[in-house]
């Protein structure tokens, strides 16, 4: 008798979990098709080399936030390398001209960051940030970015972040949370 009860209970549980799993799968499926459509939409504007540049830029920003000169220098030279590897050939002639200009300027700043001390790195990071936002205005990006702004550094300075939480790369630990989100990109 006890055995029968147990097996009925087990059967019930099994059926329940089975239906539940089926439903979940269906939901997952819906979700994944949605996601696919989404990424397909974005891929028209997706430039892997621009994403690589952005990625290095964010690593550099994080090193500045952490007051880590050595790391920032390393990230600076990585960024200079990915800037040089950028391929503008799929853009219009006018965009190519603008992109070449941006890349040349940004590369110089990245190279300086690679060989300077912290205060210099931050000076160059300011102009670099402007270059990078002009770059993604043309190339687009698949991630959501936040343009953040610190009114105190050098008469007001912006930077880009993947998070809406403010972590100030111009002051680091001295004024970590100084600033605000000025604009959301994507």
């Amino acid at each position: 008798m006890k055995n029968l009860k147990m097996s009925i209970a087990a059967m019930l549980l099994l059926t329940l979990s089975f239906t539940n799993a089926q439903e979940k799968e269906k939901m997952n499926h819906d979700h994944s098709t949605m996601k696919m459509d989404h990424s397909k939409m974005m891929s028209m504007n997706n430039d892997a080399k621009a994403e690589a540049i952005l990625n290095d830029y964010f690593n550099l920003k994080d090193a500045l936030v952490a007051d880590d000169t050595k790391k920032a220098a390393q990230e600076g030279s990585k960024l200079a390398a990915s800037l040089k590897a950028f391929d503008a050939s799929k853009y219009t002639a006018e965009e190519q001209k603008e992109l070449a200009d941006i890349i040349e300027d940004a590369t110089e700043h990245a190279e300086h960051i690679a060989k300077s001390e912290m205060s210099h790195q931050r000076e160059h990071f300011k102009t670099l940030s402007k270059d990078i936002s002009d770059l993604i205005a043309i190339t687009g990006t698949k991630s959501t970015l936040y343009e953040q702004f610190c009114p105190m550094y050098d008469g007001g300075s912006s930077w880009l972040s993947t998070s809406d939480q403010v972590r100030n790369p111009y002051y680091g630990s001295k004024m970590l949370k100084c600033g605000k989100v000025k604009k959301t990109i994507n």
Partner: protein
Amino acid sequence: MKIVKIIAVVLLVAFVGIQFVPTERNQSDVVPKTDFMLVNSVPDHIKSKLQTSCYDCHSNNTQYPWYNKVQPIAWFLEDHIKEGKAELNFNEWDSLSNRRKKSKLRSIIKQIENDEMPLDSYTLIHREASFSEAEKQELIQWVERLKDSI
């Protein structure tokens, strides 16, 4: 005593020897149309300040001091001039895009503000090239205005 003599002779020979190593001279009679002074309206006092304090290393024409002909000083100068021109060449100013110009002007302001330029090793000998506090402020303000006008 003998050893000191030998060392002195060796050093002398080496010193004379390196005098024969040629160095590249940064000199030119032509001021290109792209020169900073030709494309911007620069007030006279700022013009002469830029000439004396910056142009030796940041243009195609250096006013060489006499000791430049003596090695190893000549090498040291050659290096500085090469590096200086790579960073910024006032003679080629107008070949830069607006973005690059702004970027360079911003760097000029920062370098002067932080007393990094002109280099100490330069002002040590060229006393007239150093900036007084008032000259610094005047130049920075003028460069700021130029930057904002681009």
